[in-house]
C-alpha cells in the first residue's frame, strides 16, 4: 500500500471502528436508555425526515455566519490599521478589546435581543463579537511586524505613506491576517449557532441551526439533534477549507507555512 492510499485508509479505518463501537454500545444499552444514543442509521434517517427544516436552518445560519464574519473582517482591517499607527493607540485600546473578548456572549445575548431584536440581526452581532478579536489581534500584529530594513529601504526610496502601507505593510501582514482568518473561520459557524440558540427566532426566516437544536431538544427528537450537530460540524469544515484554499492561492508562492505538505 503506498503512502497516499495509507493516508486515506487510516482515517477511514478509524471512522469504521468508531461506528462499529457506536453500534456495539447501542446494543449493550438497555431499552430504557437506548434513546440517549441513536444509531448512525437512525441519525441518517432523521436527516432524511428533516431535510427541509435542516436545509432552511443551515441556509439561515450560513447567512448569519457569513455576514458576521464579513463585518468582523472589514472592521478588524480598519481597527488593525488604527492600532498599528502607534504603541500609544494600542495601549489605549487593548484593555477594552480584552474586555470585549472576555465578556461571555451568552450573557450579552439577551441584551442584544433588546437592542437589535431577535433573529438574524442578533445572530450577526454575536458572530461578529466572536470573530472580531482573533482577526484584529493578528492583523495588528502583522502590520507592526514589517521587516525593519525593508521599512528603511522604503524611506530611502522616498515612498509615500500610502505606498508604504499598500506595497509593504499590508502584503507583509497577509500571513498573520490569514492566521486570524483561520481561527475566525472555525468560530463563525459556532458563533452563528450560539447566537441563534440564545437570540434566535422562528419569526420570518424560521430560525437557524441553533433554533432548530432548541426545537428538537424540546421535542426529544434526539436523532434529529445529532443530525443538527453533524450539519454544524460540516459547515465549520467548509468555512475553514475555503479560508485555507484562499490562503494557499494568495501565499503559497512566497510563504513557507502555506506550502502543500503532508501531515
Amino acid at each position, binding site marked *: 500500500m503506498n503512502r497516499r492510499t495509507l493516508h486515506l485508509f487510516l482515517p477511514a479505518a478509524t471512522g469504521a471502528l468508531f461506528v462499529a463501537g457506536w453500534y456495539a454500545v447501542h446494543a449493550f444499552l438497555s431499552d430504557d436508555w437506548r434513546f440517549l444514543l441513536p444509531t448512525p442509521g437512525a441519525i441518517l434517517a432523521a436527516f432524511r425526515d428533516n431535510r427541509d427544516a435542516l436545509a432552511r436552518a443551515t441556509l439561515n445560519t450560513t447567512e448569519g455566519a457569513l455576514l458576521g464574519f464579513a463585518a468582523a473582517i472589514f472592521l478588524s482591517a480598519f481597527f488593525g490599521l488604527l492600532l498599528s499607527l502607534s504603541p500609544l493607540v494600542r495601549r489605549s485600546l487593548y484593555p477594552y478589546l480584552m474586555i470585549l473578548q472576555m465578556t461571555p456572549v451568552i450573557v450579552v445575548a439577551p441584551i442584544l435581543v433588546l437592542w437589535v431584536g431577535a433573529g438574524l440581526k442578533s445572530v450577526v452581532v454575536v458572530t461578529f463579537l466572536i470573530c472580531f478579536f482573533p482577526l484584529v489581534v493578528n492583523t495588528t500584529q502583522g502590520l507592526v511586524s514589517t*521587516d525593519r*530594513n*525593508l521599512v*528603511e*529601504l*522604503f*524611506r*530611502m*526610496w*522616498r*515612498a509615500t505613506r500610502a*505606498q508604504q502601507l499598500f*506595497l*509593504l505593510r499590508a*502584503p*507583509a501582514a*497577509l500571513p498573520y491576517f490569514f492566521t486570524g482568518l483561520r481561527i475566525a473561520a472555525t468560530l463563525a459557524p459556532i458563533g452563528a449557532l450560539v447566537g441563534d440558540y440564545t437570540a434566535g427566532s422562528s419569526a420570518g426566516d424560521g430560525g437557524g441551526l441553533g433554533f432548530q437544536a432548541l426545537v428538537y431538544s424540546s421535542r426529544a427528537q434526539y436523532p434529529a439533534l445529532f443530525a443538527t450537530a453533524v450539519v454544524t460540524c460540516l459547515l465549520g469544515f467548509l468555512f475553514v477549507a475555503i479560508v485555507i484554499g484562499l490562503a494557499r492561492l494568495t501565499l503559497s*508562492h*512566497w*510563504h*513557507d507555512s502555506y506550502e502543500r505538505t503532508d501531515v
Partner: protein
Amino acid sequence: MADTPLVELREVTKRFGPASAPLVLDRISLAAAPGDFVSLIGPSGCGKSTLLRLIAGLSPLSGGSLTVAGHAPDAAAAELAFVFQEPTLLPWLTAARNIELPQKLRGVPAAARAATRARVLDLVRLADKSAAYPRQLSGGQKMRVSIARALALAPRLLLLDEPFGALDEITREHLNEELLAIRERQSWTAFFVTHSVAEAVFLSNRIFVMSANPGRLAAEVRIDLSHPRTADTRLSRAYHDLVTEVSRLLRSAESSASAA
C-alpha cells in the same frame, strides 16, 4: 571638480540617547572622492555600521557635519543606494518586480523600468531568474538581486553593510569578483562595511581600520593593487603583504580598545 569629495565627514560624533550616553562614534573625519571604494573594517561594536547609516541619512548625527554630493544626507537620498547584510527583498514579488520597485515608487515609466531591470539582471548574471520568487533563489542569488536593485537606481554612492557576510567563502569570493567587474563598467563610489580583511583588500582602494569604545578611525591603508583585479590577484605577493598589514592594524586596534 574631480577633487570635490562626494562624501565628507567632519568631526562626526554619534551617541544613542541623551548627551550623557556614551559615544558610539568619536570625531570621525574623512573624505571620499568620486570613484573611491572605501572599506570600513573593525572589531564588533566599533560603530562601522552606524557610520554607514549616518551617511545613508537613516540616523541623525549627534555632532559634526556630513555631506553627500554637497547635501545633507537626507536630502541626498536620490544619489545613494543601500545594500543590507540580508537580501531584504519583498518575498511576494519576483526578482524582476523587486528590482523595479524603487523606480516604480519614483514614478519611472514601465518601459524604462523594464530596460533598466534587464540591464542590471545581466550585470549580476541572473537574466534567467527574473520570474523567480526570492524563496526559489539561493542565498548568493538573492544577494545578487539585492545588488541589482541597488544598481538599478543608478546611484552615485553605493553603501554596502556586510552584504556578503552571511554567504559561504566561495560564493563570497565570486561575488567580490563580480562586484569589481560591474564597477569596470559603471562608476559609482562605494562604502563597504566588512569583517573580512581579505575582502576589504581585494575590493578597496582605501581601507579605514576602526577601533571600538568609542568608535574611532585608527588607521587608513591605501590599496594600490592594479585593476582589473581577478581571482589571480589573490595569489600575488602584494595582495598578501596588504592582507598581513591590515590584519596587524586590526589587531592593534582591537587590543587598544580592550586596554581602554
